[in-house]
């Protein structure tokens, strides 16, 4: 991840530098090469409210963490955001009902919803049985990629869970 960020940052510096702008053709090629590389680094990032997002290119897949699904208990109803709706980071974008409680759902990143998981709407228990795979909630087209820097990676999230601050 760190290496990846370094590469991306380096690419941006290169992109901005006047010398390279003169040879913009070469420049575009470098950026493209690196952005293709980015796909291979897809990693699950977490918020302190226990949502996760896995980014591939400009599309983020969003779900809730294992800690969250276990804290919620059996999910009996999932209200997911409608496709084409636009949200800003941390906006309320849906809700999950479990053990008589409706828990608001928040988007970990800003962007436009491009898909929602119909299987989860039909079978909400997928969130409990497979929160990182079949129980994903929606896909969002990111419009502010810098927000990803504020999120925690797997190791940081595990530390955060230990810290009792959640």
């Amino acid at each position, binding site marked *: 991840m760190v290496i990846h960020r370094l590469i991306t940052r380096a690419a941006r510096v290169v992109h901005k530098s006047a010398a390279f702008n003169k040879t913009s053709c070469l420049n575009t090629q470098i950026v493209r090469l690196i952005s293709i590389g980015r796909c291979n680094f897809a990693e699950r990032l977490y918020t302190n409210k226990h949502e996760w997002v896995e980014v591939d290119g400009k599309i983020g897949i969003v779900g809730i963490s294992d800690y969250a699904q276990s804290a919620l208990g059996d999910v009996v109803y999932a209200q997911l955001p409608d496709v084409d709706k636009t949200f800003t980071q941390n906006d309320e974008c849906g809700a999950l*009902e479990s053990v*008589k*409680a*409706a828990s*608001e759902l*928040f988007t970990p990143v800003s962007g436009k919803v491009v898909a929602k998981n119909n299987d989860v709407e039909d079978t909400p228990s997928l969130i409990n049985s497979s929160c990182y795979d079949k129980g994903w909630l929606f896909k969002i087209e990111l419009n502010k990629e810098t927000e990803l820097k504020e999120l925690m990676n797997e190791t940081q999230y595990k530390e955060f869970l230990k810290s009792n601050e959640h």
Partner: protein
Amino acid sequence: MHRTFRFLSQAPVQAIKKTVLISQSHDIYTNLAYEDWLYTHQEFENHNVLMLWSNDPCVVIGRYQNPWLEANVPELPQITQNGVLLARRKSGGGAVYQDRGNLNLTFFTSKKQYHRKHNLELIARAVHKNYGVKITVNDRDDLVIGDSKVSGTAAKLGRLNAYHHCTLLVHANKTNLSRALHKQRWNIQTNATQSTRSKVLNLSNEIPGITINDLLWMIGYEYLNTNDFQYINPEDNFSANVFACRDELRSWDWCYGNTPKFTINKSFPIDCKINCDVTITVENGRIASVDLGNTAGLVVKEGIFDNLKNCQFDINVFDSVANLLFDAKELVAKSKQV
């Protein structure tokens, strides 16, 4: 020892302030709007609030429930003189009937402080101290006496705030309760949250003569340790957005339009030979499609039900479907005669 004291003195000592609010309104939509306004506009981390309220006859369903499955929708207007209202709350859980013989309690806290068992035990403790009657909290977070329920539970959790509310049956009209929640035999397919039906009991059965006012005072005192309650009339404190919220909660679009997608199926005879099987799909409370299963040879023109599309769903819509089919049958019969 010294170190311990130093530690204690450095610990943030911030007592949580508590307030008991008693709503003077008995309108379900006004009270739900006020509850929602508190939840969205106040911070509860250092200031917990208990709101106590009571409503005129109504059925309150959970956020993701189907009113046609939970309440006796066609008969609600006739059950009492002014009718039984139908409301959809913002929290989860099942359907309840309530009237002025119920006491509603909403415990507002931060999400971190949200603790349903703690609140329910407080209620049980207040009743036990004052009346010697033992109420227990079961594994579904219901309050029960023996095997009968005196209150259910529902909650809403946000990013920072949370509330837990419940409604105690004190001396509610049980005849109206049974009629308002009378289970319909409609064939509805849905993944909406369904209520668990339980045997219910009024507290007045165990504590003859108990009043809402007595109970309200005792629970308020148990929560606050004083009787310094605040009586509020949400109508007076209403800001424009609270009024807007009340109007939204009262609207057809909120109460019925928010029903999770469902299909309802009914078979009925068009004449002695033809039995029709009709399935209506309802999305956002409105008719999305009408499909015929078995028509026993009745030829139906395409688009015959187009006028029904997007209409607000109502059980009577099956009568309209039957009429359209009857007309279609007559038409076929006439064309054969010609």
